[in-house]
């Protein structure tokens, strides 16, 4: 994408990137700002920034990491604008309201209990651990995660392993 120069080519490339990445970026942003419509706006804004950036002739080596990073920064800015302290966890109550698709009542209870415990554990993760897990779940490599969060490559591995261990200890105890 960085090699294209004509606005119309860039236009096509950015809309194609949007088609491909909008859902993962939206999920990640929604995990930060919690509001769906705000997450959609921020996601779209990230792609507009991408377009402007490329139109000015800048190069982008890893578009996926770049777009996640811009979306991440926009989300944090949005939180700050609204005076909200950064919270990396989803709402427990709202998540619990969703009915589980498992058919049997007993299974349902067990699954709900299991997931409830996992959600409790997610609350106890640090912000960076949770973000690393979210980004990894969206398919980003360690290097891309490091670029998005502005941390070191090895630190990503540490956060991921630590986060998963915390979750595992909750689930398997």
């Amino acid at each position, binding site marked *: 994408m960085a090699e294209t120069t004509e606005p119309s080519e860039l*236009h096509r490339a*950015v809309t194609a990137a949007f088609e491909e990445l909008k859902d993962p970026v939206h*999920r990640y942003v929604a995990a930060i700002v919690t*509001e*769906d419509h705000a997450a959609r706006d921020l996601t779209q804004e990230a792609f507009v920034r991408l*377009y402007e950036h490329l139109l000015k002739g800048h190069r982008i080596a890893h578009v996926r990491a770049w777009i996640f990073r811009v979306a991440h920064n926009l989300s944090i800015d949005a939180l700050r604008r609204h*005076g909200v302290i950064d919270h990396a966890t989803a709402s427990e109550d709202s998540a619990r309201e969703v009915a589980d698709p498992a058919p049997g009542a007993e299974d349902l209870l067990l699954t709900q209990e299991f997931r409830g415990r996992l959600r409790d554990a997610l609350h106890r993760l640090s912000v960076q651990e949770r973000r690393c*897990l979210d980004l990894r779940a969206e398919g980003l490599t*360690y290097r891309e995660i490091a670029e998005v969060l502005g941390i070191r490559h090895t630190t990503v591995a540490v956060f991921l392993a630590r986060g998963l261990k915390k979750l595992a200890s909750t*689930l398997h105890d």
Partner: protein
Amino acid sequence: MTRRSLQALFFQSSHPSDEELLACLDGELDERAAARVRAHLDTCWRCRGRRDRFDRTIAAFVDVRLEDRARRTGFPPSATLLLSARLDAVDAKMEKRSVWTRLFWRARLTARTWPSPARLAQVSVAVLTAVLIVLSIGREPAVSAQELLARTVAAQEARLRPVVQPVVYQRLQVSRRAAGAGGTRETHQTWEIWSDTTHGRYRERVGAFAPIVERAAPDASACSAPAAEPTPIRELESILCANGLQAAQPLSAAAFRDWRGRVRNASDRVNTQPLDGERQAMVLRTSLGDRDRQPNRIREAELVVRADDWHPLVQRFVVQGSAHQADSGHVDSGQGDRRHDGASQSGAMQSDATHRDTTLGDAAQGDADLVSYELRELSFEVVPLATVAPTFFDAPRDTTAVPAPAPAVEAVSEADLVSAEVQAWEALHRLGALLGEPVEVARGSSHRVEVRGLASSEERKQAIIEAVGAIPLVTVDVRTVDEALAAKRAHSGTASATPVALPPGPIVFPSASASASAAPADGGDASTMIQTGVLPIQPLLDAYLPTPQDRTQAATDVVTLSRGAMSQAWALERLARFTLGLDAAAVRPSTRRTLERVALELAQATVEKLDALERRVTPIVSPVLSSPASASTSEPAATRAAADAPASDALEDGAGRADAASSGAATEWPRSALQVFARVREADEKTRRLFTESDTGLVELGSAARALMASCEAGRRAAVDITRTLTPKAIEDPAAAASLPRPPR
């Protein structure tokens, strides 16, 4: 940081660390290290157990995320189209940048990297030289002659493209100016041309002051013999033929470009000149260096195009005349033949004559053997062949017969266009399509009004077409989202999506069952915006309502009402901005009444929504409205809340009321409408802050609630002012206006 450093970190014991194990599972280790971990796992049950725990945890985490995903609303199908529209807006913004900025970015694009100091010095010298040259020759527009012609030709082609079998209609005024024995003579004639671009057929009507003559094809003899009746048009045809220009489309950038490509020793100059109001025209003047004295030879040509849309407006030629031509002005009838006399010119020609005196007129004045011709567009239209009578292009008519009715493409007045626009606004209002749907009324090219945008379904599209399609001078370009996406894919790179003004909130597509009489859709499904977690307003909701269901319902109601008020105010604001942009002289009384009727209904609906919002919110927030911090007076809550509004609001609102009370208030509603929108938007933001976001600690409930009520009240007051101003009864009877019922506080 490389994989080697990861390995250096991880390989510190015989068992792989958690980080190493996970990196191996994630494919982040290089092949050698990964093979070592896998070999270890083959032999170590404990580490296989650790691996399985990671796998199970990852699976559980992914499940929970999938569950979260299921409850989120994804992007609507139109998301890509909307993004595309925003990218178009970025393009438009970039277009407006100065030429230097564009050159800079172009240089960046080419260089890709920052230049070396030596290169930088070279570039600096070149730029400095260029600046000096530019300063020395004055301000030049940022386009070359080639670019101007290319863009104008492309714009003309683009106008034909959407029409099936296009027929181009041009109504031109042809002026001829020559220095004769008795001074400079100027003659005028109108020329109407229909050109069937698919089949190469042509028809013209020559009128104004000469006897009406109709022909079904260009006169082939014009090229070989002097016109029997040397009117300006016939002379011009001979000249066009002699210089290889098309007589069938005399005002054509493509023909101009072809001619420019053939002539030698020509020099071009592009200037800008003001057109009307803030608009600019680009003027390309091509002068031939050689002094070829052959009669009918074009010595200088000029093409004036509108800078907005590259539409050619005027074409002028200075032609090597002959004695016959120089004297021929007198053969025209007195209706068009007159001496050059500024006082006798029409307004349009006056301004133009002034310009011509300083350009081509100089040539004609300075050389008695030169004749100047001007083609000025009075009307331009592209219509489908199907709308023209089948026999229209057939045989030539009897030249003495009264001409058959032409296609309905007569020039229209500004008042007609404004009337059509207002009728379209009203039709969309009746359909409930102004409340957040991406549909807009815009002034199209060549004297048409366009209703364009996106419809949620085929039924909705048909409803819009049915509502506005019958209005004269209105064309409809409303597509379903699927159609727009398909068209975008088909034309990506060549045509951009029509930018549509988007509402400040979420785009709303009303349900297909919504009829014209039904209450219009308000603001989308507010339940999707409500987070069921802890809302800032939660303590007050808990105190006021007993059950969680009631609280959720109350929050949903409040947000829905707020969005409803926002939709109405947004429609009102759009109408106000449209009204403020109108030339008062072009608004007929009936048009004004229609506008005011729509504005009144929108203002009334806004007041109703705001009243309902206040009624719903007041009992919830009443504990903090009457808290000790703000209960020092005994004023009612709403009054106190209004007092909390910024001083500027109070001033503006006061001014609005004073205006409303004056006799000329009927013209002031658009400014009040802008106030309404500003206040309602504030109220909506404050509502969403209190009722949709989940953080309790950082919102001071008392001040937030008072600010919300103040914005509601200010918006409501401005909207009531509009209803008082525009209610016919109130205008006739101020006493009745004073007694207009105010909903309970």
